[in-house]
């Protein structure tokens, strides 16, 4: 977890928001109050550059939707189950073809990393909105979908091999150090810290990282390049980009994501 904000910051934010009954003589409060007027002036100035969401813009948007053939068109799939079913059919065919093609080539291996402790207990599920940094992908077979995704992904510019790192069930619940504060994974903190350097280096060098969080739960981290974004969208996945990276959390359809409850769930 990240450090909780201290009382000074809390008071400062309250004063900035104009909360009454704060001691104006308090230097922290005074500092925030000194910001309010200049912030308001600046916001008014910038608001002058904000277009109005008027009828003219609405019509422009409708025209664009018609031009793109999106207006009046019915999508084929609505429910995730239908999409997952279709994806698994395509996946099955795709994997069959791939296995046939690369039979004599070394494929990605799911290897156990020595010295990495596993979390003994299964974490409780959490609300998906707490995983706002990740893109949730439901699949009939998460592992197969992860494999298919990374093998179809645009190669990194240096043409390096993609690497799959399997860590065993429940070994880690987060990847990059800067995401630590967004997940509660105390049990796995040691594992995570030991591995974060490896992951960061890999992702930043353009090599996708796959982490097997447990049965039917795969976390896939990739660099958010234009080609990657385009590819994922072609797979009907709208990715969240966080700090130049994309985290896909592929889970079994109708199952909730595999993360410990975050303390802010009560907020």
């Amino acid at each position: 977890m990240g450090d909780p904000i201290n009382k000074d910051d809390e008071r400062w934010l309250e004063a900035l928001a104009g909360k009454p009954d704060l001691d104006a003589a308090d230097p922290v409060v005074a500092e925030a109050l000194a910001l309010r007027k200049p912030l308001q002036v600046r916001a008014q100035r910038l608001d002058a550059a904000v277009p109005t969401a008027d009828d003219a813009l609405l019509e422009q948007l409708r025209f664009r939707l018609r031009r793109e053939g999106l207006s009046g068109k019915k999508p084929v799939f609505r429910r995730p189950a239908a999409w997952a079913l279709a994806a698994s059919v395509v996946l099955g065919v795709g994997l069959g073809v791939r296995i046939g093609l690369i039979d004599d080539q070394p494929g990605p291996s799911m290897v156990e990393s020595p010295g990495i402790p596993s979390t003994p207990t299964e974490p409780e599920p959490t609300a998906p909105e707490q995983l706002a940094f990740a893109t949730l992908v439901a699949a009939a077979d998460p592992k197969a979908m992860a494999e298919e995704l990374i093998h179809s992904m645009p190669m990194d510019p240096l043409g390096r091999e993609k690497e799959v790192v399997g860590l065993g069930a429940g070994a880690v619940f987060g990847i990059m150090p800067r995401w630590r504060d967004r997940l509660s994974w105390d049990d796995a903190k040691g594992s995570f810290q030991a591995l974060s350097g490896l992951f960061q280096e890999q992702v930043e060098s353009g090599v996708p990282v796959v982490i097997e969080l447990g049965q039917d739960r795969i976390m896939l981290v990739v660099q958010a390049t234009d080609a990657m974004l385009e590819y994922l969208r072609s797979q009907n996945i709208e990715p969240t980009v966080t700090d130049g990276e994309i985290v896909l959390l592929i889970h079994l359809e109708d199952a909730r994501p595999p993360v410990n409850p975050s303390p802010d769930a009560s907020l």
Partner: protein
Amino acid sequence: MKEEECIELICMGGKAADVGFRALYREMGPPMLRFFAFNGAPGDEAKDVLQETIVRVFKAASSYSGNGSAKSWLWQIGRNCLADHRRKLGRVQEHEAVFDDEAWGRLLESTPDPAQEKFLEQESLDDCVSRGLNAYGQKMPDRAYLLTLQMEGAGIEDIAAQIGRSIAATKEYLSQCRKKLRPFISDCLELLPA
């Protein structure tokens, strides 16, 4: 109408989609335009980004799983479109320096800052803070925007949805915004009444 219902309607196609689109436009159009304009896509650029966002929402609506908040999902698409827009324009990719000098200059030219002019005569606390805020906003527009939302009394849930973070992480981020701002206004704090 809730965002989830708008997406449902869009998925239904035909007239239902148009109703969903209109409702979505009314609900999300103004805050998204403001978000884009404050974060490096002023004026018509904000309209372009909104247009891309709406198109992408229509294309991806059928894949919206219903897991998680629809609002967060929509903001996620909006943020991605803004990032694409910046990439297309070749702007700086570092997420804390997205508003380059050229864009900032254009914006300042179109909207003169009275505080800067007054500064030449005698700098007050407000002027000093304005100057610091402008520099901060130029360097870190996303953080300056969040402080604006906080100053305006926006709910933490709304802010969290816009930046795609949990509530706890959003509070932490706001706290970091304060720390990052401090060097820009440190000399002004001496002007605070004792």
